[in-house]
Structure formats: structure tokens, C-alpha cells
């Protein structure tokens, strides 16, 4: 780091560098679905709805060995200040796919051959970290839908703002352009084996810093997991 001080020493919202934005999670928000959840961190909110297992159509997509997990991510047109064109985009297709891969490492659909489990993620408000919020919501919703899962999955975005590593970046930090600019690294960790289920990076970072990012991310995922477990345990009080 060439001895020079980072231009970003104090976070815009006064958080500590390893402090996650306040999180709120809810389950059962969509009564008609088999499982549903919302997950909110600061100005970002994600809604995840799970439907299935149900028969997969068209039939040629069916897998006779196991069920198929299908994730669909989308941002609502009003989720950011500029209107987002609804419908699939390059970005939303990519996020759907990486979230699907992350989730398929924990769900076990071998008991439901020829079926599909659909996960729909919608972002009603976005302030950076939508894919991790979506993944957190999807993990809760899948559990709520009673889908067999080996473990939960928690995700967080760690950012490098100029030379400072910060956990759970917000939009302002993501758009930081001075010095080295901003790099964000979304990261998902499984709850039991603590394996990394998702790791993306666009921007520049040194290998040493990346190791530090993973360490910070894993620590922050523990905080996320606490919220996820808490909502699942309390959401069912009195349920038969």
C-alpha cells in the first residue's frame, strides 16, 4: 500500500469498517407461495418467493435424477433513482445464475426428480449489495418452503474503498471515485461448513487484501446468519 494513507478513512454513514447495516428479515410475506421471505439491509431490500417442488415444463428440461433449482432475479423499475427497464437484462441474468449456483450448493432436490423449485427474487429498493440481500432472502425463503437443505447460506458484500476495506458497502461507497476508486466483492458463506458458495470481484485488489476481504466477509456473514436463524425460529411461534 505504498505507505500512503487511504483517502477513505471515515465511512459516510458513520459505521465501523466491519459493521453491517441494520438488518430486518421477515418470513411468510407472500401467503400464496410455498415459502417467502424479505431481507433488508439499510437502503436495500430483497423479496424472495419460493414455489415448488412442482412438475417442470417444458418436459425436455426435466432431470430424471434430481429436481432442478431455478432462480430469477430482478430489480423493480422504481428501486433506484433512474428507472430500471423491467424485464431480463444482462446483469439480472448473470445475478440469477450466480445466485442459483450458490444456492444449489446447499439445497438437495434429489428426492424430487423431474420437478423444479422456483426462486423469485425481486428488489423493491436498492442501495448496493442487492445480490447478497437477494441471496440472504432466498436462503430464508427456501428454508421456509421446507426444501431439504444441508445448511443455510449467508452473504455479504465487502468493498475496497480507495485503500480501506469495508464490510457491507452502500451505494455511496460503491460510487467512490477518488484514489484507487471502489471495488466490491460479494461473498456467500454456508452456515455449517463455512465454505464459500459465491465470490465475485470486479475491480482491482491484491491477493493479500483479498484474503483479508474473505476473512472480514466470513465474520460479517455470522451476523447475517444470526438474523436469518432468528427470523426462522421466531416466525413459527405457535405454528403447528
Amino acid at each position, binding site marked *: 500500500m505504498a505507505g500512503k494513507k487511504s483517502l477513505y478513512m471515515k465511512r459516510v454513514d458513520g459505521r465501523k469498517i466491519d459493521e453491517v447495516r441494520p438488518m430486518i428479515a421477515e418470513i411468510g410475506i407472500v401467503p400464496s407461495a410455498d415459502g417467502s421471505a424479505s431481507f433488508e439491509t439499510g437502503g436495500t431490500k430483497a423479496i424472495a418467493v419460493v414455489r415448488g417442488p*412442482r412438475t417442470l415444463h417444458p418436459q425436455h428440461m426435466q432431470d430424471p435424477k434430481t429436481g432442478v433449482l431455478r432462480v430469477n432475479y430482478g430489480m423493480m423499475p422504481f428501486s433506484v433513482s433512474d428507472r430500471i427497464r423491467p424485464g431480463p437484462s444482462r446483469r439480472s441474468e448473470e445475478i440469477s445464475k450466480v445466485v442459483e449456483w450458490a444456492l444449489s450448493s446447499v439445497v438437495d432436490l434429489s428426492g424430487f426428480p423431474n420437478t423444479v423449485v422456483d426462486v423469485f427474487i425481486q428488489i423493491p429498493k436498492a442501495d448496493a449489495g442487492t445480490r447478497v440481500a437477494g441471496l440472504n432472502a432466498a436462503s430464508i425463503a427456501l428454508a*421456509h*418452503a*421446507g426444501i*431439504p*437443505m*444441508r445448511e443455510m447460506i449467508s452473504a455479504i458484500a465487502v468493498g475496497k474503498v480507495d485503500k480501506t476495506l469495508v464490510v457491507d458497502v452502500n451505494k455511496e461507497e460503491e460510487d467512490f471515485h477518488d484514489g484507487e476508486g471502489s471495488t466490491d466483492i460479494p461473498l456467500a458463506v454456508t*452456515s455449517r461448513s463455512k465454505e464459500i458458495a459465491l465470490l465475485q470481484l470486479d475491480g482491482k485488489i491484491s491477493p493479500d487484501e483479498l484474503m483479508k476481504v474473505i476473512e472480514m466477509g466470513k465474520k460479517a456473514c455470522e451476523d447475517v446468519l444470526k438474523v436469518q436463524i432468528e427470523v426462522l425460529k421466531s416466525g413459527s411461534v405457535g405454528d403447528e
Partner: protein
Amino acid sequence: MVSEKRQVVVPGETIVSGREFLPGEGAYRDGIDVVSGRYGIMNIFEKHVRVVPISGAYYPRRGNTIIGTIVDITFNGWLIDFGGAQNAFLSVAEVPRYVNKNEMREFLDFGESVIVKVWDVKSRGVDVSMKMRGFGKIEGGMIVSIGANQVPRVIGKEGSMVRIIKNATGCDITVGQNGKIWVSGHNIDDEIAVKKIIEFIADNVTTNGLTERVEKFIKGMGLNVSKDDVEIVAENTDGEEG
């Protein structure tokens, strides 16, 4: 249901540690621990660990009564959609009378509803039967749909809740474990009353003292809540085997 502890568990959570415990449905072994493989209520019975789901889609179990509609007719049976992952198969051998294989629509046609018993659950589908008393084609009445997880509250302890509704309205009620309830009464007003009561229960599944609240609700509708027991077929409450 006999359980030592009644507690909600989350996927990946250690339920118990020890080699002597056996992971059952919804649980798996990881080293020395028995871990929950789904979200539900843990149940340890004689070292046998299970996780019973409390939410989500309906998973058929052997012995369940389900209500569904005919969606396809094959050369030797019918396919029934009951709201599960796969369709149920009803073989011609499992219906209570002789059916001419060329005239299968005469007995059960597309779109008709049936009450059937789950005979066998495989990963590729469910086999059902309608050979016993109380099962068969649905004629008349109406079907009320609720969530499969609300069914135990509608049935009540040993069928107590269903009994209250039956006595209050005089309707015949068959509860399918898949969340479909067939109501048949002398007139449509009675059936609508039953539908309202069932929907009231479904909206209040998480409240305590539900029986009292339902009785109050029934009285509020101008019906009597009598305590006499007349011909009750108690449904199995939560699909437990045995």
C-alpha cells in the same frame, strides 16, 4: 407424537451430538453430530431424530387422505393432481368396482374430484387407492382449499375441531391432508357457513385457545355449538405413521 423436546430447527443446525442417535427424515449425520436438513420441528424418539416440516408445500405420506382432480387418463389408471410435486396415480385395480378399460372416462372423467388414500410414496410419484369406505368420487358439495400446514388445526385433537363444525352445521366434512376439504350439506348456506369457519381457522392457526375462539365465531354466526358426539370418523391429526 412423543417427543422429548419440541423445538424449531434451521437447516445446518446441530440437533444432537452422539453416535447413538440415528438421523431420520429431515436430518443427516455430520461426524458426531446429527444435523437438521430442513426447517421444522425436531423430534427425538428413542434415539431416532426427525425434523417435521412446519411450512412449505405438501409432501404426501403413506396413509394420508388426499383430495385431488383427474388430470390425465392412462391405459391402466388415472393421474390425479393434488397440489404436490408430482401427480398421484390411481390404478384401475385400486377402484372399488370393475372398470372397462376402454370406457375409463365413464367412471372418472377429466376434472372430476376424488377422495383417495395414499398407498405408497416413491420419489417418482404417489400411488393412491380408493378401495376403502369413505373414499371415492366427489359428487355435490364444495371443496375448500387451505394450506397443508393448517390442516392439523382444522382437524383438531383427535378430530375435535371437525366434530364441532359438523355438529354446528350438520354438514359432512372430509379433510384431505393436502389442504383440500370437501364439504357436503343439505343446502348451500350450511356449506358456506362451513367454508367461513374453516377460513376463520386457517387465518388463526397461530393463536392459542383456538377451539374457544372458533366456538365463539360459530355462535356469532347464529349456529349452535352442541357437545353431543354423533358418528365421528376421527381423522389422523398430522399424518404420523402408526
